[in-house]
């Protein structure tokens, strides 16, 4: 073997064609260098993968320089790399390189026994990617696991507190004879249960967030609508504590997930009210270039510098908060942080201990043309021509009265329904102001004509009115017309009803006696 090897080194071109074919078929690139650093052999695989390959007889040093400046390999400092490689010729070493094409190539070199060097060039892209993915997954899993454990320990602690109080209260309550004390205890029990309920609700939210089950749906909408909802939600809480709660309503369109932003803001507002004893809370906005910062400003006790970073951690409560009973769960701001991360919205906090805090979340502006106002819901009850028009309906048939009321309400009409003259008069005398009277003709004791007459007397004005009747007798119809009232024959079709009502209310000169 030794003899043969010597022979081969001396005359590379004389390699057996079968050996050459075999070397070319190998999945890895191969180079063999003589002790004088000149190339003896390079196989086809390397030529194919590297895009640049040494020529037969080329000096190792020259090839390294050529390779370093070819940009085929990603190198931080090509000159230094060349120096090191030249120095390391014939040394045993192995390294991974990223190629311009994105592949990862492992280069392993070994000295040959005659003082030359052989090297293999293997594509390890898949292996490396898998390794990388595995390592990342492992790190994430470990971090999540650690976070979960910390979270569960804290949750366990916080759930145990109200649970312990409940157990004591139940035990004491069973023995308590005094009614008043018992009532107090029951109240305390309900508070403890409420805390547990809040906590479980918050845990569920966090669980959903962690599980990636909440997918944001970004739309453009009017911030004013959110402010209005928050105002309704928190007005009473603030009033109970004697705090001023003021929303400076913006006119801007923003683009983010509407429901999730509402949760962020409601957590901020709830927090502000909870930790403010005197003064108030103001919610407003500031433009910041292409973004809008929504600020929740309170006159509460403020947050110390030391706590500022940690208030967004789960179950974190500023130390002196733990004294009083129901001070919150320490989860609200953590939910805020998780939601804001999900929506990629920056949250901020500025505070001075004893002077109050300003929590904020910054949102991008939206496209006003795409803004989802309440306007996407088309309805006559919102903007039909009869919206808010008060109408007095006198109809003794229960079913008809109900269906007619439903139809009129669908058109946005404020319906005052009466089954007979007495009820109608009671409504009129009770202060009901109507713009139109609709009366059935055949009422139990009186005709619709008489009822309209009495009602007009009660109202003291010639309120527009019309009669509906199932009686198509010409005598009856003529009687109604002679009394100067328009008449519709039952069942009155909605379009005819509309036309008549429109004319009576808005274009009285259009009224012609129906023929």
């Amino acid at each position, binding site marked *: 073997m030794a003899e043969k090897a010597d022979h081969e080194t001396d005359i590379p071109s004389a390699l057996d064609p079968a050996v050459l074919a075999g070397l070319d078929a190998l999945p890895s690139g191969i180079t063999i260098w003589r002790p004088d650093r000149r190339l003896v052999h390079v196989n086809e695989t390397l030529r194919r993968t590297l895009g640049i390959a040494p020529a037969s007889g080329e000096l190792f040093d020259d090839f390294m320089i050529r390779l370093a400046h070819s940009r085929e390999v990603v190198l931080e400092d090509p000159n230094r790399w060349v120096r090191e490689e030249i120095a390391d010729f014939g040394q045993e070493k192995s390294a991974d390189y990223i190629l311009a094409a994105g592949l990862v190539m492992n280069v392993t070199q070994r000295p040959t026994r005659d003082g030359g060097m052989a090297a293999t060039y293997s594509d390890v892209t898949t292996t490396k990617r898998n390794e990388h993915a595995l390592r990342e997954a492992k790190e994430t899993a470990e971090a999540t696991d650690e976070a979960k454990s910390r979270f569960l320990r804290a949750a366990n602690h916080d759930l145990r507190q109200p649970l312990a109080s409940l157990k004591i209260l139940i035990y004491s309550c069973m023995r308590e004879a005094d009614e008043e004390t018992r009532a107090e205890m029951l109240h305390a029990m309900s508070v403890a249960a409420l805390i547990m309920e809040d906590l479980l609700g918050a845990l569920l939210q966090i669980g959903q967030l962690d599980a990636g089950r909440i997918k944001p749906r970004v739309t453009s909408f009017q911030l004013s*609508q959110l402010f209005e909802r928050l105002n309704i939600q928190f007005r009473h809480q603030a009033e109970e504590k004697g705090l001023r709660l003021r929303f400076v309503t913006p006119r801007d369109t923003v683009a983010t997930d509407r429901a999730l932003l509402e949760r962020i803001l409601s957590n901020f507002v709830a927090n502000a009210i909870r930790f403010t004893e005197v003064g108030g809370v103001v919610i407003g906005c500031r433009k910041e270039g292409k973004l809008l910062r929504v600020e929740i400003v309170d006159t509460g006790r403020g947050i110390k510098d030391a706590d500022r970073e940690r208030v967004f951690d789960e179950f974190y409560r500023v130390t002196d908060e733990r004294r009083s009973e129901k001070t919150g769960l320490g989860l609200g701001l953590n939910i805020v942080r998780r939601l804001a991360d999900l929506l990629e919205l920056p949250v901020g906090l500025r505070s001075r201990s004893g002077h109050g805090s300003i929590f904020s979340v910054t949102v991008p502006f939206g496209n*006003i043309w795409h803004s989802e*106002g309440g306007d996407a819901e088309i309805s006559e009850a919102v*903007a039909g021509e009869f919206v808010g028009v008060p109408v007095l309906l006198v109809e003794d048939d229960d079913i008809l009265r109900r269906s007619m009321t439903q139809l009129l309400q669908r058109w946005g009409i404020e319906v005052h329904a009466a089954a007979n003259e007495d009820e109608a008069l009671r409504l009129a005398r009770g202060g009901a102001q109507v713009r139109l009277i609709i009366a059935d003709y055949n009422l139990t004791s009186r005709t619709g004509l008489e009822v309209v007459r009495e009602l007009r007397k009660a109202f003291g004005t010639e309120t527009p009115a019309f009669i509906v009747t199932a009686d198509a007798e010409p005598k009856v119809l003529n009687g109604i017309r002679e009394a100067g009232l328009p008449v519709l024959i039952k069942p009155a079709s909605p379009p005819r009803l509309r036309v008549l009502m429109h004319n009576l209310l808005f274009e009285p000169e259009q009224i012609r006696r129906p023929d």
Partner: protein
Amino acid sequence: MTLAVEELNAQGGLLGRKFQPIFADTCRQTAEEVVGAARMLIEKHQVHAIICGYNIGPQNSEYEPIADAGIIYVHANTLLQHHDTIMSDPKRYFGCFMADPADYWYGPGFIKFISWLRDTGQWTPSSDRLAIIAGSKPYSIVIAQSMAAAAVDYGWRLCFGPKIVQTPTTEWRQVIDEVRATNPAVVANTHFYAGDLAYFQRQFMENPIDCLVYLQYGAMHRTFADIAQEASVGIIVSSVIGLLRDEVGKSFEARYNARFGEGASATIGCQSYSNMHHYAVAAAMAGGSGAPGDFEQNRRVARALKGMIYRSVHGTIRYHPDWQAAVPYPVVTHDPSLGMPHIFYQIHDHRKPLSMIAPEPYNTERFILPPWMSRRGGLQKPASANGLGPGRPAGGA
């Protein structure tokens, strides 16, 4: 309609059969006249479909004989009541289609438009005050109500109205004085008769208020500019259905003028033209049209109309599955390929066609500050996107 039928018949008609149009005059568009016309067409002429522009007087009374006969009815009535009628009994009214968005959409569309002018810095309003005057027709009242309902969410405060004025009228001075007392940043008049609105604008200009003026639909008509003349420059008007100024729209306008003479109103004619073409395609897809009483065949045609996204010369007709009315862009759909554009125009020169200033991507010109208004907050900035050329100088007349 004539042009559409001629074009369709030249291409072979409906599966080899020629379309035969029969015209009925609805005169003043009262319930009696419109219902009478529908009855005559169905009973005497046995029509398979009724296709028309708008008849807003009868408040859907004409749906009854049409539903009884089970034929197709395509119109551009622009009425909110259509939604209520269809949704009250979708089976009965399966064949009734409104090929343009309801009047209702003018409200939120207009509020978004003025908010867009404000938020993009094209106009700096003197305040957040909005005055609304309404005509006494249901259409005007609905638009006024829906404007009022949408205003607050976009930062506008109603300082006047909606006040319903008995229309028709040419005497507006009293209501203009009442509006002036409230010092608004915007005044909208939702009455829609071209002549009446022209008098409104002339009387407004006798002592103009420092505010934007929006006039409903009728101000698009030639009559308006003819009467209002220079007083018309700067007013804003809009339409939820209007001929586009793109290749498709221009080609239609050229064919229309070639057929009916220069000065024919292609902007109005485009409505029944598109509705006829759309109906023809749907009937062909369904395998033919259906005579009165042939509910089954007409149901197939209705399904084809509903299922098809049809790009007409005035934008896309896509019927909402529940409303059987065209979906508006950009108020309901944000995708211009899926809705009919609510187009905003401004008169820049009363002798020239109106300038189409919104929405993208259909606009061809930009908003200018009306000549009667004072400039505040520096120069107007150009609208956000789209490589439009430099704007015209303010006050073209």
